[in-house]
């Protein structure tokens, strides 16, 4: 390649007129069994990527993304749960040394040390040795941190009844939502007797299932209100028979409209 005087350019541009052939280098002569990235190695990578993609798409097909009911800030029965990769932080805050008066440990000092240590690892672990047994302190700390994160995540996740959660928080289609007449007499009875557990839109809560999308007769509803069913204790309803009538009528009407 020419340098300085004698360089030729394409037109009045600064592009060299000298064309370099685009032939990949041959790495077969290099020490070790090296391989050209393009196209040899990349092909293998993309084959692995294809296998990965098939697995990934199978996952998305087998498990549709979950969606719970529309956010209801007044839903007092809802127990919050972060996405799984934040569970360990959430669980950490349950411990006495990380909550209450020591909340700073839980939210700043412990995560700060862990993530700060991770960020500055090259400057904390400065020795020349790269093998794990040559740097026992940093490797030990990483193993400790890893074990704690896995343990905390497991602790948090094992305490959750996932199926019940998913069942209790199933989304209600928009078409089935708007049909609750909150001015009706039946709703007033509902408000006084059932709302604290079954929610103001009959959507259910942590302790009780939704009252929408059910298939029960007036008589059955009256019976359940009086005598309970499943985990619902008897005598939840306290009122006159006339009110009970109105309540049952109201709940049946809500379910009929759908």
């Amino acid at each position, binding site marked *: 390649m020419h340098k300085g005087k004698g360089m030729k350019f394409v037109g009045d541009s600064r592009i060299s007129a000298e064309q370099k052939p685009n032939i990949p280098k041959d790495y077969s002569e290099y020490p070790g069994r090296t391989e*050209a990235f393009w196209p040899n190695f990349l092909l293998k990578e993309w084959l692995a990527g294809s296998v990965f993609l098939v697995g990934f798409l199978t996952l998305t097909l087998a498990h549709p*993304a979950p969606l719970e009911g529309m956010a209801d*800030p007044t839903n007092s029965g809802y127990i919050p749960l972060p996405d799984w990769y934040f569970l360990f932080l959430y669980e950490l805050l349950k411990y006495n040394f990380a909550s209450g008066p020591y909340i700073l440990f839980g939210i700043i000092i412990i995560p700060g040390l862990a993530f700060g240590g991770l960020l500055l690892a090259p400057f904390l672990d400065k020795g020349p040795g790269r093998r794990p047994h040559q740097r026992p302190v940093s490797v030990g700390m990483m193993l400790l941190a890893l074990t704690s994160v896995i343990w905390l995540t497991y602790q948090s996740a094992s305490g959750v009844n996932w199926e019940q959660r998913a069942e209790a928080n199933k989304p209600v289609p928009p078409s089935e939502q708007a049909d609750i007449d909150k001015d009706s007499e039946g709703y007033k009875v509902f408000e006084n007797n059932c709302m604290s557990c079954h929610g103001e839109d009959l959507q259910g809560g942590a302790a009780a299932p939704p009252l929408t999308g059910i298939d029960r007769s007036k008589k059955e509803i009256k019976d359940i209100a009086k005598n309970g069913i499943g985990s619902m204790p008897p005598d939840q309803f306290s009122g006159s028979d006339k009110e009970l009538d109105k309540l049952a009528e109201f709940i049946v009407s809500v379910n009929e409209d759908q």
Partner: protein
Amino acid sequence: MLQKIYDWIDERADITPIWRDIADHEVPEHVNPAHHFSAFVYCFGGLTFFVVVIQILSGMFLTMYYVPDIENAWRSVYYLQTEVAHGQIVRGMHHWGASVVIVMLLLHTLRVFFQGAYKKPRELNWIVGVLLFFSILGLGFTGYLLPWDNKAYFATEVGLNIAEDVPIIGEDIKTLLAGDEEIVGAQTLARFFAIHVFFLPAVLFALLGVHFILIRRQGISGPL
């Protein structure tokens, strides 16, 4: 024909050296699973990037249906998931991709850590990598709210309350993120949408660029 087009562009733009920089380099034996099967651990970085690409693509298409408004956000997600052909798959890709990217990122980080590959001269790239980790966690946190379902709402409420417990600046951080001192509502959703779709991806792209340039400059770390 293709060769002619290439030559025509190359004559005017001199792209061969750029191409050489990007694609023409040797892959050493110790990272090649064809020679040592255990070298599959070197795949995690590439797979992380692959899932990030999936996230970008599926996310771009999701915004064709999604609206960041508390009246309609949940409805739009419900609609795209139940009514739109393949909507469930696209949302599934974005939802599961968010989890898979964290898994891959974790494995990649552990590979680099246990091999001590962050030692001199690669300190800077490790820091960029950890910052990438943080921005992806931030993307996960802000993206979680967007469907505006109960899970999203209450998890965000908890997250913001944790931020509020930070001394001195905690309340301001919460207000800055939520857009209101007390309410997690319309302004919060708009803010999280902006952060999730514009601010953090911009940070992510910049950091990814630096990450890759440094890898090409320094080459992959040698065998142990």
